[in-house]
């Protein structure tokens, strides 16, 4: 076309467009924009590793530098997804090792990574810079040694909560003396001791190191030296925060922390001895992020800390903070955006701390910027939820876990429908919601009616029947991920809203009332969905079709069915069969 911009100009303009949504929109404008865009896309996000194949990705985007891939469904975090489910990154790494020699970044979540994989990564990509593995498993410290030894320009190695087979701490010593490129190192999930002198030398020779998260095996005595070697740190995860009371250690720590003028985030704090907490007072005022969720300190100590953190934006803490501590949070931290309160004793029958719904109400009143909440507690009322909703219509994420399943409003003994209804009605920008407590189909009616921006919904022990699910599937226009457990939702709602499933990333249902027959129908009708039946009682073909299945995972895909499923997963094919496997 004579009036179109030259390619180079378009490419230059596109280089300012980084969000996936925008890039995807650009690529749909016309064929030439699609072509130009695909050649200059550098970063790709794959929310479900089985939705697309490595081959398809590589064919369309030949010049990728950064890949982010997610594997297992979210409920895998809570042991609902059996071992061996899948999520192997190996096929991706093999394909990329051939197609993307200039790959720089790999970010993985809930995937299975082997040592061979890590070695392949370390040797295939000459300019490899960033490796983030969040809640991954399948590798050992040997794999980490390959990465340390071979990645010359490594900037980030982040093992966030992965399950690593910890053979020894020796791997860290594989970083060559010439490595000075580290910006971010997170080894908090590792058990073994690494060589402290190797760690100290590594830390002090990397001038750009801004994030360092140590593991528990690093004793408190080592911390001052490490900090002195990296005063530019912006984020620190301490190791074990305990030692016998020694004034010289306390003053050494105090000194070291005072020298960290740029510290914005603190975490770690395992095995905390409260007497050492004052060492961090010098940095409290500058902190924007504080993770005390492994710190078993009591409310008075927590409150003392928080009262000095006026600029806090993010707080993760155990319920030891109690309502009193949350009151102090509400009065002190006016910039608070995210609060997560975890249970210290989730399986105890009785309440061990004085934390109730009141704490959350206080924070919702006092913190005008609060947008993200994760809250475990033992009681809730509709009235409180209504108050919270009216206080904070700017909520984006609201995840409430009342520990006892199907707990009623503790004041009126009614279901909590009205309370959650108020949340979705007032919080128009709500993107993520997790429900708990006693809930009838009515709450789902409210959700379907009001939660138009909702992208992810988690349901457990809720609802009366198919109508509830139908409300959600037919009403929530932005829904991408739906995960349901132990709720009486079944075939009718699924089949009536089958087409909706193709607009979502995935649906998980376990211990619900979905029959095998319905699964077969879905698989037949919607060829662009993978309908995977997870059932550990043997093939569903051996039982009547009306029999309920244990677990169901449905996701849209352009890659067809997968072939790496274990024996207890059956994929319904286009004929509506889930073929028997030959062992």
């Amino acid at each position, binding site marked *: 076309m004579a009036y179109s911009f030259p390619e180079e100009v378009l490419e230059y303009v596109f280089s300012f467009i980084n969000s996936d949504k925008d890039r995807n929109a650009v690529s749909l404008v016309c064929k030439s924009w699609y072509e130009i865009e695909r050649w200059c896309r550098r970063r790709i996000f794959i929310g479900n590793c089985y939705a697309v194949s490595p081959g398809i990705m590589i064919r369309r985007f030949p010049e990728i530098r950064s890949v982010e891939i997610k594997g297992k469904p979210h409920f895998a975090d809570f042991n609902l997804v059996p071992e061996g489910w899948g999520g192997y990154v190996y096929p991706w790494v093999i394909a990329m090792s051939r197609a993307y020699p200039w790959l720089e970044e790999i970010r993985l979540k809930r995937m299975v990574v082997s040592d061979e994989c890590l070695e392949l990564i370390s040797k295939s990509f000459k300019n490899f810079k960033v490796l983030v593995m969040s*809640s991954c498993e399948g590798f050992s410290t040997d794999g980490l040694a390959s990465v340390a030894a071979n990645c010359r320009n490594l900037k980030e190695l982040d093992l966030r909560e992965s399950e690593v087979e910890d053979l020894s701490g020796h791997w860290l010593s594989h970083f060559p003396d010439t490595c000075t490129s580290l910006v971010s190192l997170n080894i908090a999930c590792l058990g073994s001791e690494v060589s402290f002198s190797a760690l100290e030398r590594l830390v002090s020779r990397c001038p750009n190191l801004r994030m360092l998260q140590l593991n528990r095996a690093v004793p408190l005595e080592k911390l001052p030296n490490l900090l002195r070697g990296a005063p530019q740190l912006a984020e620190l995860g301490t190791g074990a925060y305990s030692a016998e009371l020694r004034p010289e250690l306390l003053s050494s720590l105090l000194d070291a922390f005072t020298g960290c003028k740029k510290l914005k985030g603190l975490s770690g704090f395992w095995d905390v001895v409260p007497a050492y907490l004052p060492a961090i007072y010098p940095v409290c005022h500058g902190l924007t992020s504080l993770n005390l969720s492994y710190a078993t300190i009591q409310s008075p100590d927590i409150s003392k800390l928080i009262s000095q953190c006026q600029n806090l934006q993010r707080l993760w803490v155990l319920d030891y903070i109690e309502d009193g501590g949350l009151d102090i949070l509400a009065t002190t931290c006016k910039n608070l955006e995210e609060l997560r309160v975890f249970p210290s004793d989730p399986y105890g029958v009785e309440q061990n701390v004085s934390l109730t719904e009141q704490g959350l109400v206080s924070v919702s009143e006092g913190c005008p910027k609060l947008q993200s909440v994760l809250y475990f507690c033992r009681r809730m009322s509709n009235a409180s939820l209504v108050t919270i909703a009216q206080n904070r219509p700017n909520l984006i994420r609201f995840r409430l876990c009342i520990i006892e399943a199907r707990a009623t409003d503790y004041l009126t003994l009614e279901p909590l429908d009205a309370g959650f209804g108020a949340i979705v009605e007032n919080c128009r920008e709500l993107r993520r919601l997790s429900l708990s407590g006693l809930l009838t189909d009515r709450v789902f009616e409210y959700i379907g009616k009001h939660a138009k921006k909702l992208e992810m919904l988690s349901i457990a022990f809720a609802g009366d029947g198919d109508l509830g699910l139908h409300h959600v599937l037919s009403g929530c226009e932005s829904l991408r991920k739906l995960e349901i457990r132990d709720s009486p939702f079944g075939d009718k709602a699924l089949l009536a809203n089958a087409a909706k499933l193709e607009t979502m990333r995935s649906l998980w249902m376990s211990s619900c009332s979905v029959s095998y027959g319905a699964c077969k129908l879905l698989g037949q009708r919607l060829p662009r969905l993978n309908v995977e039946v997870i059932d550990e009682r043997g093939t569903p073909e051996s039982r009547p079709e009306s029999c309920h299945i244990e677990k169901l995972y449905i996701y849209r895909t352009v890659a067809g069915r997968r072939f790496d499923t274990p024996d207890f997963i059956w994929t319904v094919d286009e004929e509506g069969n889930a073929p028997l496997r030959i062992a």
Partner: protein
Amino acid sequence: MNLKTELCLGLPGAAGGDVEVDQSVKMKGKRGFSETVDLKLNLHHNDHPALDLSQNVKSLSNNSVIKPPAKTQVVGWPPVRSYRKNVMAVQKSNAEESTTAAKTLPGGGAAFVKVSMDGVPYLRKVDLKMYTSYQQLSDALAEMFSSFTLGISLMAQTKVLCMICHKFNQFRNYGSQGLTDFVNESKLMDLLNSSEYVPSYEDKDGDWMLVGDVPWE
């Protein structure tokens, strides 16, 4: 909440207020009912967490019921990640090291180990903190895998294999049921001998050990 010992013909998720422990016995349509019932009887006995094991089991009764540990846990509820559970468990057990080991387990936390059984296509994660003795663990494992015990016609002798993933140290922090009571009780020895399934585990040196060789704590 008791672990169900009746075979339930009901469908998963159909139970209203019940919260079933995952992997409770489900009946396969083709199995002989009486065979399964027999098997169940062999594998269960009266167990009371507060009792000394030496006072245990005079006879295996038809109505024997496993009393669960302090609280029956529903899999994955409340939704606390395994990583967090394990971290908290180690911290708690460190804190309580100096106190006398109680008969009831320290509350909270969990220590997951992977369990596999020959011929069974999947692994389970079992929370060791839920059990105060080898017998409880053995019973729970038997129940978990019992739906397979009749089906494996091609397997002559099989073993239940416990793979301890770097948690051997935690394995030693538990409960207080003594080993001697355990092995002296002849009924229990009969139980172990009569069962085709012998729990064993791999310790951190990679050696296979019979469960029971090392005291529970």
